[in-house]
C-alpha cells in the first residue's frame, strides 16, 4: 500500500540518487577550475568530470581479476546507501559505518591485485581512514550530546544551530574533507588529478568503466560529507549548505598552498588538531551544561 508519505519518501530518495552525482561532478569541475585559476591557468570547463566519466565508461574493459570488480560495486553501493540514509534522516552512526564499509571495500579491491603500487596505496588508504574516522565518530558523539539522539532527524528538530555548541568539531571537517577528497597535504593513498603519487596508488589496477564507477562513488561521498557539514546549521538548511561550500573552498585553498605530507605527520595532525580538539569541544559541552550555561 503506497501512502502519500511513502510516495514522497521514494521521490526524495530518487531525487537524491540522481541529483547527488550531478551536483558532486559539477563541484569537482568547479574545484578543477578554481585550482587552475589559483595556479594562474585557465583550467578545464566545469563539466570536465562528466566528459571524463563518459570517456572512461566507454573504454575497453580490462581488469586483473573479478573480485576486484565486486569491491567497486560495494564501494559505490555503500556510498549511495549512506547518502540515502542521510536523506532519510536516519542514525548518524549507521551512516558513518556504511561509509566506512565502502571505504574498506575499496581497500580490499586494492589488496586483491598484485601490483605493488596498489598494495602500498591500500595500506595508506587504511591509514587515512584511521586518521579521519575518529573525527567522524566524535562528530556523531557531539550530535548526541547536544540533541540527545544519534538520529539526524533530531538535529532538524532542534531550533538553534549545532555550530554554536560544536564549533571545533565543525572545523575538524576541513581535515575530514581534505582526506576524503584526496587533497594535499593528505593525498597519500591516491592523489587527485594531475598528481601521480604512487601512480595513483590504490586506483592503479582500475581502468575504464570501473574507474568511472569509483569516480561516481566519489561524487556521492563528496555530497555526503558536505551534507553532514550542513547539519551544523540545519535550520535553515541553506545556511548549512553555505557553510559546507565555505569549508570546501577552504580545502581547495589549502590543497594549492601546501605540499604533500608523510603518513606519520598526517596521523599526528589529525589525531591532535582534529580528534584531540574535538574531544576538548565535547568536554567543554559537558562542563558548560553541568554549570547550566547551555541546555542539553
Amino acid at each position: 500500500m503506497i501512502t502519500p508519505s511513502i510516495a514522497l519518501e521514494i521521490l526524495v530518495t530518487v531525487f537524491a540518487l540522481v541529483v547527488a552525482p550531478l551536483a558532486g561532478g559539477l563541484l569537482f569541475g568547479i574545484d578543477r577550475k578554481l585550482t587552475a585559476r589559483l595556479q594562474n591557468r585557465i583550467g578545464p570547463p566545469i563539466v570536465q568530470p562528466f566528459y571524463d566519466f563518459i570517456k572512461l565508461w566507454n573504454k575497453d574493459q580490462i581488469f586483473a581479476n573479478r573480485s576486484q570488480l565486486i569491491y567497486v560495486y560495494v564501494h559505490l553501493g555503500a556510498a549511495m546507501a549512506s547518502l540515502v540514509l542521510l536523506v532519510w534522516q536516519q542514525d548518524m552512526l549507521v551512516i558513518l559505518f556504511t561509509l566506512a564499509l565502502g571505504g574498506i571495500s575499496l581497500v580490499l579491491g586494492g589488496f586483491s591485485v598484485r601490483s605493488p603500487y596498489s598494495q602500498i596505496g591500500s595500506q595508506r588508504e587504511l591509514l587515512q581512514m584511521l586518521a579521519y574516522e575518529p573525527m567522524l565518530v566524535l562528530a556523531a558523539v557531539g550530535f548526541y550530546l547536544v540533541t540527545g539522539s544519534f538520529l539526524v532527524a533530531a538535529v532538524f528538530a532542534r531550533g538553534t544551530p549545532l555550530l554554536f555548541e560544536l564549533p571545533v568539531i565543525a572545523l575538524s571537517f576541513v581535515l575530514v574533507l581534505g582526506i576524503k577528497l584526496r587533497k594535499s597535504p593528505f593525498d597519500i593513498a591516491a592523489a587527485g588529478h594531475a598528481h601521480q603519487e604512487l601512480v595513483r596508488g590504490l586506483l592503479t589496477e582500475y581502468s575504464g568503466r570501473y574507474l568511472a564507477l569509483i569516480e561516481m562513488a566519489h561524487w556521492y561521498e563528496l555530497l555526503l560529507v558536505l551534507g553532514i557539514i550542513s547539519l551544523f546549521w540545519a535550520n535553515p538548511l541553506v545556511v548549512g549548505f553555505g557553510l559546507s561550500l565555505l569549508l570546501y573552498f577552504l580545502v581547495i585553498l589549502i590543497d594549492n598552498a601546501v605540499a604533500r605530507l608523510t603518513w606519520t605527520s598526517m596521523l599526528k595532525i589529525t589525531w591532535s588538531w582534529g580528534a584531540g580538539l574535538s574531544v576538548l569541544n565535547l568536554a567543554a559541552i559537558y562542563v558548560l551544561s553541568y554549570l547550566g550555561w547551555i541546555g542539553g
Partner: protein
Amino acid sequence: MNIITTARVKSPWILHFDTGSCNGCDIEILACLTPLYDVERFGMINVGNPKHADVLLVTGPANRRNARVLRNLYEQMPAPKVVIVIGTCGCSGGVFHNCYNMLGGIDKVIPVDVYVPGCAAKPEAIIDGVVLALQRLAERSESKPALAEALA
C-alpha cells in the same frame, strides 16, 4: 559528433614515455603543462599509469633495450588509444641514427598515429600534434567498424 566521441576528444589523458631521448623533448612536453600553455584547459591530464591513459606520448628512438617496455606499455592501455611520437629521434632515429643499439623510429615497435618532428619539438608543435591525434581518435570513434577493429 555523438556524446561519446565528444567526451573522448575532450578528455585525453596522456601517458608520457621516454625511450632514451636526450630529454630535450621531455622538457618541452612538461612545458605544455605550465600556466603558459596549460593543456589542462583541453581536459588533458598527465597520468603516470598506462591503464588510465588514452594518448601515449613517446620521446626518443626505439632501441633494443626499451622495445619490450614500450610494447608492454602500449598493450596495457585500454582501447581506443592513439600514439604520438614527439621529436625527430622518435620519428626516424634522428641524431641517434645508425647507432649499434638502435631499431630506428618508434613505428618499428608499435603503430604510430602522429609524428611531431623537431629537435626539440616546440610546445606549440606538440599541442598541434595532440589536436591532430584527437581528430584521428574522433574519426575512429565515429566509424564503427574501425572502432571494432581497434577494440579487437
